[in-house]
């Protein structure tokens, strides 16, 4: 691989952080978009409540926004952010607020008319989410084998392009092309379903 073809994983985040520290707030938006789902999933595994997890995800990013000037880059940004998220979630579990949330959760479970907090998905949203999931699974199943394998190694196993190239004994640029084409094919199948969700884009 040409060393100039790619930078190490942490570097894209570092470039975004540099821009943010120079006053470009939209660079932080990209970091939010990039990591929000992983952070939300991590917190939800700890607190086991979607609405509370969303609140704590927001708190995590607020803390990161404020503390980013003190980030020294001794670990990856993602590691640093995960630490903030974990501490925020564990802090919540130990707080009085958690006691209240647990009580509210019990009440919600015992009353079919009360759902979880207002941010929980509606039945319509759940249906759309399920349809998207099924569309994606079908589209991936229809991909050529090499593209499907490269995509799954990237998305499910989290391998880098270089690791995938080594695993599949294929040139790096071929892997890059396979993953790109695979995603394009799946994204094209999703387009009709996604049109209805464009009104609240970031």
């Amino acid at each position, binding site marked *: 691989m040409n060393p100039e073809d790619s930078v190490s*994983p942490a570097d894209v985040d570092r470039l975004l952080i540099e821009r943010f520290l120079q006053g470009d707030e939209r660079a932080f938006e990209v970091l939010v978009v990039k990591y929000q789902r992983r952070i939300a999933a991590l917190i939800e595994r700890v607190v086991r409540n979607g609405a509370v997890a969303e609140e704590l995800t927001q708190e995590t990013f607020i803390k990161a926004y404020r503390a980013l000037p003190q980030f020294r880059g001794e670990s990856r940004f993602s590691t640093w952010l995960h630490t903030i998220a974990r501490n925020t979630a564990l802090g919540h579990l130990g707080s009085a607020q958690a006691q209240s949330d647990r009580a509210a959760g019990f009440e919600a479970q015992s009353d079919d008319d009360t759902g979880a907090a207002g941010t929980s998905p509606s039945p319509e949203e759940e249906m759309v989410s399920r349809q998207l999931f099924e569309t994606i699974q079908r589209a991936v199943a229809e991909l050529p084998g090499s593209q499907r394998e490269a*995509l799954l190694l990237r998305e499910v196993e989290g391998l880098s392009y270089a690791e995938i190239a080594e695993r599949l004994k294929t040139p790096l640029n071929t892997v890059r092309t396979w993953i790109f084409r695979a995603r394009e094919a799946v994204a094209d199948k999703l387009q009709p379903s996604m049109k209805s969700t464009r009104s*609240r884009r*970031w």
Partner: protein
Amino acid sequence: MVDPRSLVAQLLDDEMSAADFDRAYPALLDDPALRDRLSTLQLIGDSLRGRTVPDDGYTLRILARLPRNSGPD
């Protein structure tokens, strides 16, 4: 000429050079279609990992709470 959608994917994957980042970043901010593409790619990844997909207002609710007027400490 590199397809900007490819650059967006590489940004998400942390697989790009600094020079490509300098091309991809302003394009991402300027082009709503590229931001939609980024969200779509995340949706695909989440689905393959079996992860619940947040609704599409999730990002905006986070961004709305950032204390931008005070800036970073």
